[in-house]
């Protein structure tokens, strides 16, 4: 039989291709209604912390150092009111083999793929995850294909993405690059069907559980260094895996009272699938263009049920502007002697502002850094912005308009994390959940599930359902 390779034809075989390529029958965790058993999925298809520490340890991943940012703390205290200014720490995830925390996700996925006997792995990513998968695949002797969204229709590519292509190729991977558009998923499915490789999705239980070691390590390191758990952990939020894994790891370490704050770069107004706007942004990840849609509907990912469910774990969700992140990236280099990639510093910009709300005896942790290099650095990223008619100004960050300008704060006191209304996001999630499950009679179990999913309570969910006439 000749297979229908048209867009519609291939998309209609999506579930069958995915089941083969991930090795998980997601149907087992479904209730037939809205609810699915998230914890059962994580338990039965993931790994325990001890197993993961072994897997990751053998792959050179994890146990990254924690540094206290004494000068940035001093600066925050100068700007804060009397007695305020928490101690700021950073976990140097750039020390992982491929230069970012994504190595944790990849190590688990690749281990699992190897165990199940796949000959190769494929991941659809323009970010650090591609390099992480390629690096881990190289260690395990698996073939690797990375599919990137890279260029606009004029053939201009984000320097950051081109650098990641280079890094993947350095590890022996094939990098298939595409122009802008969600049909990347079509190519991805086509490759999975053709090669029968493993889908090293960012959103499988193994991948997300891989980040749990990060949260777990933070708890252990602070107990050893400071004799207590940190008060706040800030994690950059895009697809939700970073927040989810870190928070779950903290919980597994018994550090349940740590406040988990998600942070994204504000790219409000830019359409992620727009050819014209693709190169108007200076961040390719860690931004609201992923953070918002994935928080309000995680199951839009490349697997039937995403294991990354950030809304379950975020106590607060804040945004910072592009100019603020570039400024803090420069500050990290100039004051702390740490030159790291801008995207990974999103949570640092937020933490610098949040520290000023907290008392001096509190501890706030930025849980990642990423590598920097040609293309993936403030200078080429701002040069590229200028080439795309973005104005670089020095002034008030609040006046920044994504796609039009980037405003470097004229003073560090102007760096301010802005809170997003979590209740609004929760409501939006419930609305999306209902829209994606038409003709379903909502059960009491579903309501409990929605309360868990939104980190709220039954009364809140009932009130929203009433507002939606459900």
């Amino acid at each position, binding site marked *: 039989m000749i297979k229908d390779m048209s*867009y519609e034809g291939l998309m209609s075989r999506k579930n069958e291709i995915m089941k083969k390529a991930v090795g998980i029958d997601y149907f087992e965790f479904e209730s037939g209604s809205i609810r699915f058993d998230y914890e059962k999925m994580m338990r039965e298809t993931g790994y325990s912390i001890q197993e993961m520490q072994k897997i990751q340890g053998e792959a050179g991943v994890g146990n990254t150092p924690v540094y206290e940012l004494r*000068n940035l703390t001093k*600066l925050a205290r*100068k700007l804060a009111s009397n007695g305020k200014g928490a101690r700021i720490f950073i976990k140097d995830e750039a020390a992982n083999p491929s230069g970012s925390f994504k190595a944790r996700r990849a190590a688990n996925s690749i281990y699992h793929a190897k165990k199940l006997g796949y000959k*190769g792995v494929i991941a659809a990513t323009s970010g650090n995850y591609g390099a992480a998968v390629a690096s881990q695949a190289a260690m395990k002797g698996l*073939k*690797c*294909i990375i599919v990137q969204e*890279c*260029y606009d*229709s004029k053939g201009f590519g984000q*320097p950051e993405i*081109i650098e990641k292509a*280079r890094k993947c*190729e350095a590890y*022996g*991977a*094939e*990098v*298939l*690059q*595409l*122009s*802008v*558009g*969600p*049909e990347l998923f*079509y*190519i991805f499915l086509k490759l999975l069907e*053709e*090669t029968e490789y493993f889908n090293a999705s960012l959103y499988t239980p193994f991948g997300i559980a891989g980040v749990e070691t990060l949260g777990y390590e933070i708890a252990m390191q602070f107990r050893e260094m400071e004799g207590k758990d940190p008060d706040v952990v800030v994690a950059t939020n895009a697809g939700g895996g970073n927040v989810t894994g870190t928070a779950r790891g903290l919980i597994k370490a018994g550090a349940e009272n740590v406040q988990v704050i998600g942070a994204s770069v504000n790219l409000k107004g830019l*359409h992620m*699938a*727009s*050819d*014209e706007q693709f190169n108007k942004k200076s961040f390719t990840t860690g931004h609201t263009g992923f953070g918002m849609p994935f928080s309000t509907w995680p199951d839009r990912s490349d697997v039937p049920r995403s294991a990354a469910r950030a809304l379950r774990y975020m106590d607060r969700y804040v945004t910072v502007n592009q100019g603020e992140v*570039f*400024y803090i990236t*420069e*500050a990290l*280099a*100039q*004051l702390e002697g740490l030159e790291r990639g801008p995207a990974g510093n999103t949570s640092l910009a937020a933490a610098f502002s949040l520290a000023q709300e907290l008392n001096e005896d509190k501890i706030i942790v930025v849980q990642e850094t990423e590598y920097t290099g*040609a*293309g993936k*650095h*403030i*200078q*080429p*990223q*701002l*040069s*590229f912005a*200028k080439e795309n008619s973005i104005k*670089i*100004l*020095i002034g008030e960050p609040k006046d920044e308009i994504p796609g039009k300008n980037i405003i*470097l704060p004229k*003073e*560090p006191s102007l760096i301010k994390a802005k809170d997003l209304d979590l209740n609004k996001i929760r409501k939006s999630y419930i609305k999306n959940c209902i829209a994606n499950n038409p003709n379903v009679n909502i059960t009491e179990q579903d309501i409990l599930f929605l309360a868990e999913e939104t980190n709220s309570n039954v009364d809140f969910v009932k009130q929203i359902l009433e507002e939606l006439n459900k």
Partner: protein
Amino acid sequence: MSIAKKGTWVRVHNIVLNPSERAPQVPDDTKNVPLEMWDKGFLLNDEAKIGDNVEVETYIGRKIEGKLIEINPSYGHDYGKCVPELLYIGRQLRSILEGGESND
């Protein structure tokens, strides 16, 4: 014009979807342009020049076809041009920490 011999490392380009074939949810500006792809591999044809349709074997061993666009492709990304707008940051931060001006 340079000629690539069999086995040379090259970059190829393809149109994956024409504008009329693009997914329904795509915004209009994206729908007006094709979905394009780029990949690299070792040339399988005996010889070819830029613009020829060729077959290549990718680094991991897949065979794909495409239009030859670059022979021995290189990376062009770098550290960009000088961005003078960034130069104030370090000095400003150091002066605040040193207690200069009225920041005490």
